[in-house]
């Protein structure tokens, strides 16, 4: 099974929120209006959809090969 490390470039985040729709176990919208990570490493494949869905291009997902 794949594992992914996820990073949000906060300088690009505009609080669009599509990441939360794609991977609600990984992303949340903070009261300040930007997204943050609930976890930084996950096996949720939705994070790739979240990265694609982010119109700002703020999400980076790196697949880490499973041992």
């Amino acid at each position, binding site marked *: 099974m794949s594992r992914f490390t996820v990073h949000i470039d906060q300088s690009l985040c505009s609080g*669009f929120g599509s990441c939360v729709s794609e991977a609600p176990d990984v992303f949340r*919208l903070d009261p300040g209006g930007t997204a943050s990570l609930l976890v930084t490493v996950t096996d949720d494949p939705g994070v790739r959809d979240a990265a694609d869905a982010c119109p700002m291009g703020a999400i980076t997902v790196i697949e880490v090969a499973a041992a």
Partner: protein
Amino acid sequence: MNGTVLVAGAGLAGSRTAETLRARGFAGRIVLAGDEPHAPYERPALSKELLAGTRTDVALRPAGFWGAQDVELVLGASVTDVDVVRRRATVGNRELAWDALVLATGAQPRRLDGPRGIHHLRTLADAQALAAEAGESAHLVVVGAGFIGSEVASTLLGRVASVTIVDPAPAPLVNVLGPDVGGMLAARYRSHGADVLLGVGVEGFDGAERVTHVRLSNGERLRADLVVVGIGALPVSPLGGAVETDEYGRTSIPGVYACGDVAAWHRPSLGGRVRVEHWTSAAGQARAVAAAIAGEPEPFDDVPYFWSDQFGLRLQHVGHAAEWHAVVLEGGDDAFTARYVDREGRLVAALAANRSSDAARFRRELAA
């Protein structure tokens, strides 16, 4: 296809097209040509963090990214003399043969010109020039209470001696938000210390070498030694003004595509072509154009979305409605939502202020 893709315009739309082509495995030549001397950067930050001085780097991708992607970035070069029959164009001073042409040349600000001290804000160079003149003794007049005007006023409040916003409309952003919500914003601007003069236009500027006053349509003269004009932008392209496309980003000319601020993009959900100057539309259109060039067209029919950070509010607006029947407000001064509904009570647009979760919910509701 293989061959050469020429992308005219190296802003968000152009650069995202180039990037997405490579991500989709396109192996041909990509030339990304922009008339500014900077690598692709975030334009929205110009009126916010860049002007505030809290960020200096607004590049969209790290240095070296474009080279690593094998995208030929040509800066300070306009694309002109486009020949759609022979598929040639002049890029800077070289002639280039292309197989696909993407028009992503954006828009230029509508101008009110006069003595020195009058600024328009579109480019990084514009923002740097404005920042350099925004000193603590400056009396700033902002012409136009749209996004540029309101964000510049918000950013420079407290840094300059005074801020006055002037707009002939009865409220800021009235075409998008309506008079009630626009009026709430005007009240907020005033409570933060900006003067807001509505229902009055600008006739001209006094001053010989440098501006000294703004002349208003009601005969008044406002003291001003720094002026920012934000009265809208007009699309520009080597083929003229706005470029019409279908919902895949294709123009009526084979091999020619368009995306971003320049594109009058067909949206089946809205029943026609709309030219939208928002980030998320440009980004989505760019991805669709890349898919079309790659021979795998995907329609892009988004719910228009914009955000604006101003006066302590993160405004997020979804939808595109020329008119509405009623506005339903909920919340308080510092966090609220406004739902714009038609006669049947259906949501046609919505604004969230410091309510990001509601903005996301409205967007899903409109997309359904």
